[in-house]
């Protein structure tokens, strides 16, 4: 758990070039610091790529690399617990020609390298979305923002509700760490989107694979880290304002941030951030989708204090959304569903409107967090993170109650209120022999859920306790990591059945482990292999569901005897990296023991709305095999070809069959042309991209009302640039056209694929004004 917090490794280097061409006695020196605490970091490896030169920082964080010839170099800094960073330094002759020899024999230049302390196991593949890549997704939901990453797709309910899917796993099998705290919302539902405003983060990372040791339960498919920037302690006032408009749905988003230190109060920093979003009915190429509007009001506040190795941060965020659910998706009976499928398009059509009517979801999520840490002078470190979360979810059905007095109350037909408290204590021991580093942690969670309305899941309260240790070794070009964890969870559910209260008690125990190795072969090639396990206790809906799932037209029944799922994941990757070419190839094999899924039953269930296909939550053993590949090739300095491929194959090993709801294979290609400077603009780019998504042919026979939709290909175009408006004052503008040709298509992982097409062309304009930083 050492990696829980987000702090920046700050490499403040001073680069000295002795311009005695052509002799090779230039040197680079500096200090490696942790920005969070400004404490020097001993034992960091600083190397010059391609020069076979490396040094380790001393006990005061200092390093010096000498004997360098003038030229173009990459400087790399690596330290256990932090992501390795690379920075280009240009010591070219051309550069030096600009120096006046009379000026000085030694030219001094500050280079700042910022690296992010990783919250992820070192040897697992992590995909990061930040900077300009993140800027291009602004205005989209969390899941939509992430789906450009290899191996990440979405599970959708219409156009407005999207959940992230990592290597074919989603919902409670993907853990979201929101600013260092487990997001505890209502993620068990496939139509429950993550309750997070992506504008809170300046960095979104996806850890692919089972990471149960560090994060505890639910990190079966992977982990999503939503990380804000480090607080601007003692910095001047800065901020940004984002304006985003989407043509489809006529959606407008505005988000602003203000942050800074406080004059006269040394060691203090603060940040305030807020987002407003409003959108109306979205349009497929041929018709509007009725009642698909969205409304969001989010804000977050943060403040922190640092003093001599001690630090404390307070954070509060509120996410509040209202989401219209496409009214054509309310299904009374199987006949209703078959009629819509046969029709080929929704029976209800409408024009454009911002109004949100029934059915809709009203969701809010509050997070309060306190983090405190202390760096002992000898290098040990202690951290405590405590959080409170309150999630409120109301679902309003299409029909109000028939009874007038009940209808007048306008209550949600389903209401969940989930309260969660978590605590985590972490101890990072000081580096031993400049090789070993490690972390011991203990975390607990207590939560309770209050449920009202239509029977769906019971009330419950649960608490859990986890203890773990991770140790890492960097030696002779090897990086090794090993960890163990033990979890205990106690769940009590309370139901009313036939007017009688029934209490059930469950206890789940699990041990998890992880083992990883990484090896650099030469300067450009590196190999990584990680073996990890993770677990997930069955959630209350899997234990106790009993009723018709409207929208899916299926009768779903839980099973209180389900046991926890366990994932055994192996993931290996090869990375070849040069400035003009980066290739990454990753392969994984994830074996899920006691995988919980809905198994079709032979006999339908008869209800007043007719017979419904009957599905029972059952366990099997499933294998998830896949390959993620990516390529970034720059044939010239301005042109780049980016290609990403995701391949996944899932099999039910116990029943020798395929499983439902597995994302199909996809291949994305992009050509990008960059112009560093033109007119008053900087970093201009234009790109053309194509996304090809295959047809999912690996589905169980006779398990669905309609076959998976055919393959589709979408084109998109992006252009953007930065307009400097003064010192530390920039305007970034981006224009994106998604689905340029207004292609009609449906996606297998959209639950509304029975009812309607996906949304058509969508033109978005993004403007970001950034000042003071």
């Amino acid at each position: 758990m050492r990696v829980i917090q987000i702090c920046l490794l700050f490499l403040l280097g001073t680069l000295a070039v002795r311009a005695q061409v052509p002799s090779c006695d230039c040197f680079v020196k500096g200090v490696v610091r942790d920005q969070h605490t400004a404490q020097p970091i001993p034992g960091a490896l600083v190397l010059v790529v391609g020069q076979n030169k490396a040094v380790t920082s001393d006990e005061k964080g200092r390093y010096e690399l000498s004997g360098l010839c003038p030229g173009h170099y990459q400087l790399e800094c690596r330290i256990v617990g932090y992501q390795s960073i690379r920075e280009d330094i240009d010591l070219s002759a051309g550069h030096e020609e600009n120096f006046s020899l009379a000026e000085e024999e030694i030219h001094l230049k500050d280079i700042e390298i910022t690296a992010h302390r990783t919250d992820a196991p070192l040897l697992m593949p992590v995909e990061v979305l930040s900077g300009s890549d993140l800027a291009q997704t602004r205005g989209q939901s969390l899941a939509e923002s992430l789906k450009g990453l290899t191996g990440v797709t979405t599970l959708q309910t219409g156009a407005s509700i999207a959940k992230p899917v990592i290597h074919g796993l989603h919902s409670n099998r993907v853990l979201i760490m929101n600013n260092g705290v487990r997001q505890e919302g209502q993620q068990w539902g496939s139509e429950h989107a993550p309750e997070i405003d992506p504008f809170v983060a300046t960095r979104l990372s996806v850890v692919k694979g089972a990471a149960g040791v560090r994060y505890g339960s639910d990190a079966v498919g992977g982990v999503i880290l939503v990380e804000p920037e480090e607080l601007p302690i003692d910095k001047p006032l800065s901020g940004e304002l984002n304006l985003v408009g989407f043509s489809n749905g006529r959606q407008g988003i505005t988000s602003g941030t203000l942050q800074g230190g406080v004059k006269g109060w040394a060691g203090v920093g603060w940040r305030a951030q807020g987002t407003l979003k409003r959108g109306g009915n979205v349009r497929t190429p041929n018709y509007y989708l009725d009642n698909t509007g969205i409304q969001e009001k989010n804000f977050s506040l943060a403040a922190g204090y640092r003093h001599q190795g001690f630090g404390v941060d307070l954070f509060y965020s509120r996410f509040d959304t209202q989401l219209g659910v496409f009214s054509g998706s309310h299904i009374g009976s199987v006949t209703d569903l078959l009629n819509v499928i046969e029709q080929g398009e929704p029976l209800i059509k409408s024009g454009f409107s911002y109004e949100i009517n029934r059915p809709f979801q009203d969701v809010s999520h509050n997070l309060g967090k306190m983090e405190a840490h202390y760096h002992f002078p000898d290098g040990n470190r202690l951290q405590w993170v405590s959080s409170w979360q309150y999630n409120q979810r109301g679902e309003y059905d299409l029909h109000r109650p028939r009874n007038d007095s009940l209808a007048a109350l306008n209550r949600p037909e389903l209401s969940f209120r989930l309260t969660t408290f978590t605590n985590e204590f972490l101890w990072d021991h000081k580096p031993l022999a400049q090789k070993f580093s490690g972390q011991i942690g203990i975390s607990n969670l207590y939560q309770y859920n209050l449920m009202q309305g239509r029977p769906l899941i019971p009330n419950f309260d649960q608490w859990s306790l986890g203890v773990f240790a991770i140790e890492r070794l960097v030696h002779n070009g090897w990086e090794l990591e090993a960890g163990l964890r033990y979890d205990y969870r106690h769940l009590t559910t309370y139901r009313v059945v036939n007017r009688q209260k029934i209490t059930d008690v469950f206890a789940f125990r699990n041990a998890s482990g992880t083992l990883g190795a990484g090896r650099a072969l030469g300067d450009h090639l590196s190999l990584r292999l990680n073996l990890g396990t993770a677990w997930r206790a069955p959630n209350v809906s899997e234990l106790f569901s009993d009723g018709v799932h409207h929208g899916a037209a299926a009768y779903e029944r839980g099973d209180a005897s389900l046991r926890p799922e366990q994932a055994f994941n192996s993931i290996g990757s090869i990375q070849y990296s040069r400035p003009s070419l980066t290739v990454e190839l990753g392969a994984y094999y994830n074996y899920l023991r006691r995988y919980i899924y809905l198994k079709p039953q032979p006999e339908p269930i008869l209800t007043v709305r007719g017979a419904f296909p009957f599905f029972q939550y059952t366990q099997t053993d499933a294998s998830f095999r896949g390959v993620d590949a990516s390529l970034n090739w720059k044939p010239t300095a301005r042109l780049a070809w980016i290609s990403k491929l995701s391949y996944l194959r899932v099999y039910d090993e116990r029943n020798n069959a395929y499983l439902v709801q597995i994302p199909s294979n996809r291949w994305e290609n992009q050509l990008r042309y960059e112009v560093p400077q033109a007119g008053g603009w900087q970093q201009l780019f234009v790109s053309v991209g194509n996304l090809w998504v295959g047809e999912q042919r690996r589905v169980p026979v006779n398990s669905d009302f309609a076959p998976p939709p055919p393959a589709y290909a979408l084109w998109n175009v992006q252009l953007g640039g930065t307009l400097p408006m003064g010192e530390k004052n920039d305007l970034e503008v981006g224009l994106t056209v998604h689905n340029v040709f207004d292609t009609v298509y449906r996606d297998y992982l959209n639950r509304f694929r029975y009812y309607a097409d996906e949304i058509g062309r969508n033109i978005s304009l993004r403007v970001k004004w950034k000042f003071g930083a």
Partner: protein
Amino acid sequence: MKMNQKLSWVLMLGATVLFSQCKNADNPEPEDPNELITTVRLHFTQQGTTTPVSFAWRDPDGEGGNPPTQFDAITLKANTTYTLEIELLDESKTPIEEITQEIEEKKEEHLFVFTTSPTGLLTYTYGDQDARGLPVGLTGTTRTGNAGTGTFKVQLRHQAPVGGVAVKDGTPGPGSDDVNLTFNLTVQ
């Protein structure tokens, strides 16, 4: 509210597990399915008589739990005219809730649809209307054909206004099923 109290708890106690904080979860509220229909009764009264013959579908504990307890086969005389009245109940509630009355009050957004297979076995004529002159189907007239066997499907279409605009147009198309039951029918 209770929340502030809890927040202070957590700040004070740190890692301590808060066993004592779960007092509301163990008090579940009774389930509240507002739309539940547990019982559908069809009352056929032969013209010129006053005593109906009744056929029912019953699932007293609602969806899930125990299977339906009653699903009658309909038996009628050939070439005879009957009035047909529908009765809907929610027997899971105490006292038993009369859904028929609620449909009557909301008839602008409800429509019963009766489908016979084969079609000649029984024909149905609506006997009631809503305020806009559209049929409802709580009462009507049926005329049986020659002896034979088949099915009689009873659907209650809930055609609630969409965005404040009425969608009921007298056809089964709009809305969704509240009832969809296919009774076996014998005409003898």
